[in-house]
């Protein structure tokens, strides 16, 4: 695959005080590619994808996402975020708005489309995440799995080119994980560019074009899923897979 990268990170460094969260890290993501990032907690996975839509800023190195260079104080950040959706571990739906309003507020206020268009788009994506009948409920009336699917639909409504997933199933009860993963698999099959931080290895195996293993702020191993799961090269990666696959 030699498409132009939509995310291009070169030698990123990030510190939280003394803590070195990202260490001289480089990665490219091509258009339409599905990258799954895994690794032990505290390894910098979330920090990395939060840098991709400027919720955090790296301190040195260069990061270009969707043709826009990311740095603190850039006035293109708003434009960048319109094209890069994010799904959070804790859903972060707006509790004072109904499901439909949650989906419409971005298109209405940020993209400034007409109300009718925004509603049509919202209903179309609610359909796509299989909860068309929950449009007028408030987030607290939905199950965790449903809330996370609404959150996915909310990013889709922005017609984002890239969607970042930050441990989207980690806060869910086990019986709800699959309904969310199913939606994500369908997205992947439609050719969406996705970067997922997740511990769901079955899902990763199914959709990933490339697996990335991170530990201690560094990318330790990058491989296609087949190689990654059957013949990981590094010791640390083998250890990690051992733990998550045989619990």
């Amino acid at each position: 695959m030699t498409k132009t990268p939509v995310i291009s990170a070169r030698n990123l460094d990030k510190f939280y005080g003394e803590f070195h969260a990202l260490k001289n890290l480089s990665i490219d993501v091509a258009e339409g590619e599905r990258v799954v990032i895994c690794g032990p907690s505290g390894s910098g996975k979330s920090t990395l994808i939060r840098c991709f839509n400027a919720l955090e800023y790296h301190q040195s190195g260069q990061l270009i996402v969707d043709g826009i260079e990311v740095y603190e104080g850039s006035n293109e950040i708003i434009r960048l975020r319109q094209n890069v959706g994010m799904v959070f571990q804790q859903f972060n739906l707006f509790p004072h708005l109904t499901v439909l309003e949650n989906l419409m507020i971005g298109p209405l206020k940020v993209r400034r489309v007409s109300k009718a268009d925004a509603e049509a788009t919202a209903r179309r994506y609610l359909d796509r995440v299989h909860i068309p009948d929950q449009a007028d409920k408030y987030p607290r009336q939905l199950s965790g799995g449903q809330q996370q699917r609404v959150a996915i639909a909310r990013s889709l409504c922005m017609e984002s080119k890239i969607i970042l997933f930050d441990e989207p199933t980690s806060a869910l009860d086990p019986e709800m994980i699959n309904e969310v993963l199913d939606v994500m698999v369908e997205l992947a099959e439609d050719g969406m560019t996705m970067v997922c931080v997740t511990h769901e290895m079955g899902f990763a195996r199914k959709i990933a074009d490339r697996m990335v293993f991170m530990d201690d702020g560094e990318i330790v191993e990058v491989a296609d899923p087949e190689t990654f799961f059957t013949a990981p090269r590094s010791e640390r990666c083998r250890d990690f897979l051992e733990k998550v696959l045989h619990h």
Partner: protein
Amino acid sequence: MKILNRLHWVDWLILALITGFALYIWLQIAGTLNYKWRWHLIPNYIVGWHTKREEWFANVLLQGLMVTIRITLYASILALVLGIGLGLARTSRNMTVRLLARTYVEFLRNIPPLVVIFIFFFFLSVPMIDALGLERWARAIARSENNQIWIFFFGDMRLFPQLVAGTVVLALFESAFVGEIVRAGIQSVDKGQREAARSIGMTYMQEMRYVILPQAVKKVIPPLANQFITLIKDSSIVSLISVQELTFKTLELVASTRLIFEAWLVCAGFYFIICFGLSQLFARLEK
């Protein structure tokens, strides 16, 4: 009388002590001070009968009460506007803005209200009223004929400059506290909400307007209602800068009639009825 059966002997003792103390005070007033109660004079100072024009009119105490209500209302509206600005400034991403707001709040919280009121009055209100020429402007309205609307909103227009001074001074003082309430409300909204708002490309203003403030408002209303009641009570301080509100009028009444105890008790009663009534009302509305 079920309640009487539930009283323990300790309760009876406490009640007896309180009654005894009240009686002692009473005797002191009647005996040692040789005070003559003249309650019958009081109603006249609330609502008087104008013998020439043959109509009822609001006398000093009621006039004072009206002024108190007016300045409280106007000052709380102004304090709310200033306080929201201050609350936003306190949570701003810009450090200079945050620092300025913080300085303002800390000054007000660590200086006695009375001193703050005098400082605001002499440094801000007096020059402002002079600069705007409010004094002359208000007198002109007071003399004109079509001034009913002005009188309805602001009372006696000859006292308009004092009303403005009192309102501004009170509002500036209370804005610090309103600001802290607003800040707490904004900060109580989960951090994930901001991130979600940003991740769909909202600007700071949009994030505040559509996501943070609507959620903060619900949390902020009960403490704001409380602060409003506090403001009614604090309004008595502006009597010291010659705003003719309830406390000021009571002082005048006491000076001219020597109805010391009656007048102050009535004054206290007015404040109590308003504040207690409002707190009950707010408590009911919250449910």
